[in-house]
């Protein structure tokens, strides 16, 4: 039988002795923290100067910024690359602040595809040329509408098979559903892989340093897509679960005509909490939450909503939340990226006047 030594155990738990004694009882090791007030230095980015091989990540970067799926694609390429290989991110031109975003997401190099308008045929040619130039082990695409289309064009152009819609990925195995989702196919990762959304984790480690590489050089040939225009959509007609920007009214809103007018002016899709729908102030179809619609929005504006658990379930994946509430202690305030303690009616009127 081993006797316990409480003094030695306690000493092993000491995190700091000044300004006061702090113990770590979760047994994560007794490393001494820097004393409070010491400058926190950002970790130096990882620089892979001489990669053993390359991995490609082709991202969509709609609007010049990375979305969740893009970060997952870079994360997948990072997983395949390990520590010694470099991830080359092929991207449309990014907004000014974004090269940093590529390094944070786990990319080591960027190749900017100089395609000013929607032209998947030209992009596929450029990517096929980059594959010839750099001979990456794998090329990872997002299995999204445009990303999946581009992946298949590249596969057809390079005469390769595409492992479409992978749901699990490790350096030695990829898995995807087939036969109407009744079976799954497992294989060692082939060259071209597209990954399903929200399946493969993005990279969260120390940021990498992303250096630019020259764009591939191919003569442009006239394609079969003669013209392309993206049409403006009326936000009110977008189904609530697909809407990118949702503005919702809760029990703190009294002027519902003004609310709908504001939603129209803002180009946002209107939503509501259950209390409002129960009262009949807004139609049931607008209800956000566990027993209503689960949103996939980028941005959510909550007016006079307390943020009950059933409501928060409906906005679980929304990254950017604005809450306007008179109660500082409402649950939604803790969840919001921008919390405003003010009367919803006044802010609504001021917003409407500004648009």
């Amino acid at each position, binding site marked *: 039988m081993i006797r316990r030594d409480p003094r030695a155990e306690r000493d092993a738990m000491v995190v700091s002795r000044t300004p006061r004694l702090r113990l770590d009882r979760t047994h994560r090791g007794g490393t001494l923290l820097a004393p409070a007030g010491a400058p926190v230095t950002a970790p130096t980015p990882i620089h892979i100067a001489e990669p053993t091989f390359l991995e490609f990540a082709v991202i969509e970067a709609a609007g010049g910024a990375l979305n969740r799926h893009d970060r997952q694609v870079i994360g997948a390429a990072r997983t395949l690359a390990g520590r010694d290989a470099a991830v080359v991110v092929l991207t449309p031109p990014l907004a000014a602040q974004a090269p940093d975003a590529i390094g944070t997401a786990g990319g080591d190099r960027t190749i900017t595809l100089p395609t000013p308008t929607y032209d998947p045929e030209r992009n596929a040619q450029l990517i096929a040329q980059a594959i010839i130039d750099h001979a990456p082990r794998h090329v990872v695409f997002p299995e999204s509408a445009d990303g999946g289309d581009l992946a*298949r064009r590249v596969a*057809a152009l390079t005469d390769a098979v595409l492992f479409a*819609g992978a749901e699990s990925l490790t350096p030695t195995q990829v898995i995807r559903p087939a036969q109407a989702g009744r079976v799954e*196919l497992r294989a060692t990762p082939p060259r071209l892989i597209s990954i399903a959304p929200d399946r*493969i984790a993005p990279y969260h480690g120390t940021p990498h340093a992303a250096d630019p590489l020259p764009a591939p050089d191919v003569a442009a040939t006239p394609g*079969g*897509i003669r013209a392309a225009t*993206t049409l403006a959509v009326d936000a009110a007609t977008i189904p609530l679960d697909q809407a990118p920007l949702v503005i919702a009214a809760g029990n703190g809103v009294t002027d519902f005509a003004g609310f709908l007018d504001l939603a129209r002016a803002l180009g946002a899709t209107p939503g509501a909490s259950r209390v409002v729908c129960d009262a009949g102030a807004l139609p049931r179809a607008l209800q956000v939450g566990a027993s209503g619609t689960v949103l996939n929005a980028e941005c959510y504006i909550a007016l006079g909503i307390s943020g009950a658990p059933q409501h928060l379930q409906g906005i679980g994946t929304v990254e950017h939340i604005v809450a306007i509430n008179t109660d500082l202690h409402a649950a939604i305030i803790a969840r919001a990226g921008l*919390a405003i303690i003010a009367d919803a009616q006044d802010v609504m009127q001021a*917003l409407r006047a500004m648009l």
Partner: protein
Amino acid sequence: MNIIVLLSAGRDPHAGTPRPVPVELQAIALALRLAPATTITGLHAGEPDPSVLDALGHGLTTLTLLLTNPANDPLAALAAEIDRARPDLVLAGRRGRGGTDSGLLPYRLARARAMPIAADAIAIEPDGNDLAILQSLPRGARRRLTLARPAIVTIHEAAPPARAFAYRARRNGTIHEKPGIPAPSPTDNHEIRPYRQRPRLIAETTQPTTAGHLMLAPTPETAAAAVLAYVEQFRRR
């Protein structure tokens, strides 16, 4: 306009029994808006699968079957038939449902026949010598494309609904059977297992990742300006 609709052997996702792929039936409905039924042909390379024959009950009047082993690569047989029939437009579903389901075949066919291809159409109209296509994008967005003829177009689930099944039409439809071109399928050594549901990543955003910005009792104007600035930041994505 001469239209070919590519049909694949579909399977029911739950029962596994033969069942047509819904988007392919929507493709037939879309073709019927463009041209009379007599100029529309269904095309399948493989065995006379009941799911393919059932397409005749959904508005198709003729079906060409290129008899090959279903395990073969259908590309060569389909390409040869397209060379012979010279269609103005080839329609396909965006993905099969019952085979490898990779959605790659229309793209390989487009490459083999040097035809342009566009994905996820919900409406098609002739536009002079070209085709005007309305494409469905995520988040309810739409894009209009002009495509040179002849072209391959894949159909999105948001396209108009398929025609209802009519048993008499299914019985009276014409089926042309021809020998296909046997070709080994591009070998990939896959291991096949029953599908296992894996969790999606959602945990990442259910907690606030960064400390939010808090404004205590601002004037309505400053509050409104802050909201607009915050929203504009994420608007253009």
